């Protein structure tokens, strides 16, 4: 008698309402669409994430590695009740965010990864994720952690998150922070933006293809420099290397 192990291994997803796409103007004046992606689109995104696994800057390496695994698990049906949203500017990927529905009342924010920096793209995508949990899925709260100081500033400080330190987060088992409905309502006016419906032309462009990031984060010029600088304040060995790398002299 054969046993279909896949039926055992594959979790059965609970129904989740779709995230209605929205759009907004970012600081550059460009229009950005945030929409949910289907499982079939995950292989299009993975190569953009993979290259960031080697960016040892602002914790891009660890976040990219984890996002890659989470997206792969979603694609291969090894995680339950996950969703993925992307932010696109003229088709180009600007950010990826994902999370999970733990139960009807609680959401689990997984990651926010900005592939273009300096224009609050990641922050807009995070806000959309919170909107999905609180407004669309009608959950009471979302559990959140930050892996980088930038994330801490963006989520814990800007949203004034509550401590839920007795609840381990799914990311590393570390103490959770929580965005409650009340906190989200307070942030709604200033942090949560976007317009619906998305004009057909913008939406068509977004669905046509997820294009590669035009200016993705890059590795630091010297992987050892950050460590060296803590111990050696007078060394000059890196100088010649930097000279060559910058190619400016």
């Amino acid at each position: 008698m054969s046993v279909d192990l896949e039926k055992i291994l594959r979790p059965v997803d609970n129904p989740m309402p779709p995230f209605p796409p929205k759009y907004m103007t970012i600081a550059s004046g460009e229009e950005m669409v945030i929409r949910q992606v289907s499982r079939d689109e995950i292989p299009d995104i993975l190569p953009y994430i993979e290259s960031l696994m080697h960016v040892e800057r602002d914790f891009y390496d660890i976040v990219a590695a984890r996002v890659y695994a989470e997206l792969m698990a979603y694609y291969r049906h090894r995680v339950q009740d996950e969703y993925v949203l992307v932010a696109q500017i003229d088709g180009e990927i600007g950010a990826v965010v994902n999370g999970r529905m733990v139960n009807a009342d609680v959401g689990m924010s997984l990651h926010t990864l900005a592939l273009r920096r300096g224009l609050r793209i990641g922050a807009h995508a995070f806000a959309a994720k919170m909107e999905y949990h609180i407004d669309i899925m009608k959950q009471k709260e979302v559990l959140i952690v930050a892996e980088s100081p930038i994330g801490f500033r963006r989520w814990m400080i800007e949203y004034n998150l509550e401590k839920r330190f007795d609840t381990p987060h799914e990311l590393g088992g570390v103490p959770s922070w929580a965005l409650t409905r009340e906190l989200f309502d307070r942030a709604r006016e200033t942090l949560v933006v976007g317009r619906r419906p998305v004009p057909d032309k913008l939406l068509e462009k977004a669905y046509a293809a997820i294009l590669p990031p035009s200016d993705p984060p890059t590795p630091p010029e010297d992987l050892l420099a950050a460590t060296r600088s803590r111990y050696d304040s007078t060394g000059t060995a890196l100088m010649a290397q930097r000279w060559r790398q910058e190619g400016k002299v």
Partner: protein
Amino acid sequence: MRQVYVIGIGITTFARLEYPLCEIAAYPAMMAMKDCGLSGVDHLYVANMGGGRVNHQTGLASAVVDSLSLTPAGAETIENGPASGASAIKQGFLAVASGLHDVVMVIGAERMREVNNLEVTDFIATLTHPLAEYIYGVTLPSLAGMFTRLYMDKYGVTARHLAMVAVKNQNNALLNDFAHLHQEITIEGIIDSPEALTNNPYVAEPLRFFDCCPVSDGGACVILASGDVAKRLDKPLVRLAGLGQATDTHTIHERQEPTDLLAVRRAAGQTFQMAGIKPADVDVAELHDAFTILEIVESEEVGFFNKGEGHLALERGETSLTGELPINPSGGLKGRGHPVGATGVAQAHEIVLQLRGDAGRRQVMDARIGFTCNFGGFGNNVVCLTFIRES
């Protein structure tokens, strides 16, 4: 006094630099030495504001002079708040002009991003009055916010004018490979769109996010020399023709008219008088736009425009890269970045680059006279410099 020339320049990328403060100082120095072709200097001044506090590094000049194998040249660290860079250039000028030295290296370097933004804000706030300002939570953005509100009420400057400065300078920075910010921004994105308030939130009302300079690491260097030395080199002759420095009350509330920046007015007047020129003679300027309002106000105080009319000149495009008087072609502090102790030297670097005709895509046509304004405290210690191309 002898005449003083800039014979060598160098700069690092302004960004978050993941190498030690000493190397941030040494790297542009090596570029400047390569630029002028000299292998030694008589004396070295290093401008730095926060090494002791932020980087646990004091006596920076002593470390740098050894790193560069320039011992036994004299070396001193100069600290004058955010005006440290131009102050160090002033010391270098005096050393050469007096005949004490023939070749002097001036470096500005700062590594601010070793600590988080809250610590940096606190570090910068230490230049406010400890008992009348700091203990009440005053920070530089908060002072600038109050100043901006007064200026808006009095002279009709609007949030749109401030945003125009931000857009102009940040877009100039797109043409500068060494600049910190390389993101194009638009008025639509930061002022007009329904999402603008989130894209560009208030930091210290009425100042918003894009009205404030970034926190940067970076270094810059200029090498000053006597005419005898400069004329032996195969470089366009750029003379440091004038310098001026003035101070004002430590606290703003003690000023008779808080919207006047008298130290800027006086320092600019001195440098123009020393150089024998008028403000209208200036072809290109680097002003200290730590906050967008400062570019507008400084452009009036130094005499480029009448008081209260700087924003109108901005509207007319006079300060754009192709305008009559381009201001901050490098991107300024807003776009190039503001590693505090390095800024004054970086301003001089940009002006020399412009006067040599080496500024590439952001070159101001036929620039012959350049001006810098390096603004310390909240206008309580200001150093202005004038440069003239002679050949």
